[in-house]
């Protein structure tokens, strides 16, 4: 390589990359470090002698213990898992079938229906929760997990449908035609050929849906009221901020523990997930 190329690489590649990483990862670092600092350090004024916001010499698990012993955190975790899994399952089943139908079957208004579904996805939740709250109240679903399991699909189904539509379009039509000549009905061709081939797409739709419902805040805040029904994002923020007092340690510990399942889900499926995004179908 020519002389001078090295510093170029540092200036134009490594340095911006490092800055970007710092920018991206610092909040996570802050979350981790805060969740491990003793309260004495956390609430020390900035002008005290040994003020050191970025590091601690006395890491503690007190906040985590507090979270599990003094709050309903384990209950919130369970609520969130149940709600996220159930709404993801509902949305995936609907999304896969709808995506298949919109991409493969020719019926009147298929195109405009597809666009319509996409537009519903664009309606902001902050607008939709008002009429939805009315519906939830009428069906007496308020303060139950079902209020979320049934409302999350309103934005998850359009999302899954849209993603699966694109994926099914990338699957060669001949695969299905061949299966149908081989003696499969349309239903069998979909079940035995198209869906197995589309597994990477289904997985990525599933991961996205799971993450969206795991992190969802506004519906959970509006539809749930009793502490033992809450999900992690709502529970942590409503129970650990009392008046204007922020319990920073448990708050950050809760945020950390709440983001772990999502991180695990991502890394577990990452291979499928990436190939799902690139839409690779080998013929």
């Amino acid at each position, binding site marked *: 390589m020519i002389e001078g190329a090295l510093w170029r690489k540092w200036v134009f590649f490594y340095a911006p990359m490092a800055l970007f990483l710092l920018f991206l990862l610092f909040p996570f670092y802050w979350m981790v470090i805060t969740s491990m600092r003793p309260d004495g350090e956390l609430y020390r004024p900035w002008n005290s002698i040994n003020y050191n916001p970025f590091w601690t010499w006395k890491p503690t698990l007190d906040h985590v213990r507090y979270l599990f012993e003094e709050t309903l955190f384990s209950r919130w975790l369970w609520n969130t898992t149940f709600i996220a899994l159930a709404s993801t399952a509902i949305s995936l089943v609907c999304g896969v079938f709808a995506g298949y139908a919109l991409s493969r079957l020719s019926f009147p208004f298929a195109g405009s229906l597809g666009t319509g579904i996409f537009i519903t996805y664009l309606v902001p939740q902050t607008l939709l929760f008002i009429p939805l709250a009315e519906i939830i109240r009428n069906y007496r679903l308020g303060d139950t997990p079902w209020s979320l399991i049934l409302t999350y699909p309103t934005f998850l189904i359009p999302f899954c449908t849209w993603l699966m539509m694109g994926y099914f379009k990338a699957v*060669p039509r*001949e*695969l299905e*035609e*061949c*299966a*149908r*000549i*081989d*003696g*499969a*009905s349309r239903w*069998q061709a979909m079940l*035995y*050929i198209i869906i*197995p*081939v589309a*597994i990477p797409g289904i997985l990525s739709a599933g991961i996205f849906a799971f993450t969206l419902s795991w992190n969802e805040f506004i519906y959970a805040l509006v539809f749930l009221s009793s502490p033992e029904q809450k999900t992690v994002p709502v529970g942590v923020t409503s129970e650990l901020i009392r008046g204007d007092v922020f319990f920073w340690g448990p708050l950050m510990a809760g945020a950390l523990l709440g983001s772990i399942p999502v991180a695990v889900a991502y890394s577990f499926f990452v291979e499928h997930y990436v190939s799902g995004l690139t839409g690779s*179908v*080998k*013929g």
Partner: protein
Amino acid sequence: MGQVVLKGINKFYDGVHAVKDVNLQIRDKEFVVFVGPSGCGKTTTLRMIAGLEAISSGDISIDGNVVNQLPPMDRDIAMVFQNYALYPHMSVYDNMAFGLKMRKFAKGEIEKRVRDAADILGIGDLLKRKPRQLSGGQRQRVALGRAIVRHPRVFLFDEPLSNLDAKLRVQMRVELKKLHQRLGTTAIYVTHDQVEAMTLGDRVVVMRDGVVQQVGEPLELYHSPSNKFVAGFIGSPAMNFVPVTVTEANGSLIAENSGLRIKLPVETAQRLRGHIGRDITLGVRPEDLTVANSADVDNPCFDAVAEVVEQLGSEILLDMKVGDGVMVASIEPTVRVKVRDKLRIAMRSSRLHVFDAGTGAAI
């Protein structure tokens, strides 16, 4: 049995008339090839026979039963696709067994049929592999295997060799021919490659713009094409076409243009009696042109200038300037020719084709 009859088949795609009134009788055990440039309707016709495409009007019957309304699965046909369409998540064995499983064959019978087909195609040791672990030629064989395990009444092939490299294509072509001779199943084959059509087909159907131009045995198409399109499409290098005017002189007919003046042989002249003073197109195949020698007293001759000399070993392809036009001759490899040589070229007059200048129909 596997007799397929197409009666007045038409296909309209949102206003486009893709296939126009196709009538054809395909006999049992026959190998019929549909050939034509892309977009000529050959694949659409095949897909209508397969049941993958609805028929706008007309009847398709297999062994006497009209199948217009039958779904593909009930037509007892097998199809091989251009991109093989192997099921990527299944092993070779499962790919081949899929059709039999769907039809609820007994396990032992499935096993036996798959093994037999794999042996015929020489893929017996690949049965456990996944399609992505196979080469193009192997995938092609699996696709064929998937078709033959079913023992269908009719095989449909949609350009099955066009994804293979040139050498493999020739090899698979021979194998397909052998396979057909061995199994004797009726086959309908679609290709845009006239060499495949000529070598594989018992009969060849030439299509253009949705219209069947000619149906016949390969040599019949070659020697007596019904129009200029068929003449130009079949044969490589393509037939030379020379626009000429027919005139009469001393009782014999002369075809001439700016660079060419030839006396037409008697049998051709008789066909052209009604065309005196009119324009026609003369067709002559490259191999019917030779460098003239003293023996060519009966054959019409003309002057040409060699422009490109392509040595193929077994022959020489000679691009020549004749008057304002260009012609290609395929001549003996022993002849010594250089670029810009002035040559006297003789035409084998018994093989001369004449076409109407307007309609292109053979006269």
